Structures are given as structure tokens and as C-alpha cells.
């Protein structure tokens, strides 16, 4: 597609349920990032995928959070046993080959998660 696509746009879930958030990066982009943004706050790094390398999971806040990526395409962020503190916008971004070579990253519109 022309841009990074995320789904769902909005998700309301009950506390304790599992949720899956999907990200389709820009075609050909090898790098993919997930960030979390709570209301009125900055972006928290969650996880980074680059090609076939092992992902950088250093930002995942707990073992309830996991993410996978199929090759250099779709990624899924899974939150198990959701808590109210997980309510936030989850932003996905992709980059042609990582930002180390000076590339910028392109963001999707985010998935707004509300845990009630």
C-alpha cells in the first residue's frame, strides 16, 4: 500500500481479555517499529524488527506484551490479559532499512485501545 496501515483503528476491550493489533508496513520497508503513546504523553518505544535479525524487544513493558513479524511484511502486537493501564494509542512505523543510514520512519495512524 501507499502508507503504513494499522487495524483496528479503535478497539474497546474488557479488562482481562487479549487483543491483537495489526500493522502493514510500506512495501519494501525492512524495518518496523511499535510505539505506545498514552494520552497527552510522548511515544514509548516497544519493539523493533529489522529484516531477519532478532527483534529488539527491550521496550516491551511486561511479558503480557509480544509481537511477531512475518518476513518483511505484516506485524502483530498482542497484549494478553489487558489492564486499564494498557489504554493508549499503539503506533506502528516502518523504514526502508532502519534509521542508521539516515532514513526517516513513516507512521501509521495508530490503533486506539481502551480497556474498560
Amino acid at each position: 500500500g501507499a502508507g503504513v496501515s494499522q487495524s483496528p483503528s479503535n478497539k474497546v476491550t474488557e479488562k482481562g481479555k487479549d487483543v491483537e493489533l495489526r500493522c502493514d508496513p510500506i512495501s519494501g520497508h525492512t524495518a518496523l517499529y511499535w510505539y505506545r503513546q498514552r494520552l497527552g504523553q510522548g511515544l514509548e518505544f516497544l519493539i523493533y524488527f529489522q529484516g531477519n535479525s532478532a527483534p529488539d524487544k527491550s521496550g516491551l513493558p511486561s511479558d503480557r506484551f509480544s509481537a511477531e513479524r512475518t518476513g518483511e511484511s505484516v506485524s502483530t502486537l498482542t497484549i494478553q490479559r489487558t489492564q486499564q493501564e494498557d489504554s493508549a494509542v499503539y503506533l506502528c512505523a516502518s523504514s526502508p532499512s532502519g534509521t542508521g543510514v539516515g532514513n526517516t520512519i513513516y507512521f501509521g495512524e495508530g490503533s486506539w485501545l481502551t480497556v474498560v
Partner: protein
Amino acid sequence: SQQGEEDPQALSIQEGENATMNCSYKTSINNLQWYRQNSGRGLVHLILIRSNEREKHSGRLRVTLDTSKKSSSLLITASRAADTASYFCATLRLNTDKLIFGTGTRLQVFP
């Protein structure tokens, strides 16, 4: 904290005035980038400055970088109401591809 700090947290100005936002960070970096966010959704890249550059311009935007002070500033000249948004700096740490964002500045430009 993994985030940098930005100040001010919020800035209100009149159209035509200049807006200056500052960003400080903690570690050595490869480059620093500024992004804009409308309405709390996706971010849009504005400008990138490398660690060996001191100043960069793009249209009405001027970015400076002082690596000795680990700080950067974004200047928007002749602001417009359409510039109203949140602005974030992001740093790329050396030897990583992890882009770390600051806390952001909310800019309000009144017509």
C-alpha cells in the same frame, strides 16, 4: 527514562510570530529528527539533522544541534494557524536503530 525532554511542554503564540521548541537528550547520537503530530494520531517527519551538522533549514523550519550540550532546537518562523500540533524530537542512538522520542511540545497558533 528512555525519553528525552522537551520544553516548553506547551506554547501558545499568535500567527506571524516565531515558535521555538527545545529538546535535550542523554546519550550520544547518530542523528536527531523532528516530527509533527496532529490530533494524537500518526506522526509526520519534518527534518533530520546528523550529529556532525550544527544547523539545518527546510522552508520555515530551522533546526540546530549542539552535541556538546546534548540539545536541539526547532524554530518555526512566521507561524500559521495550521502549524498547531504537537512536535516531538527523536534521537537515534549510536550503533542502534532504535529511535527514541521526547515528551513533545504542544503548539497552539492563534489566528
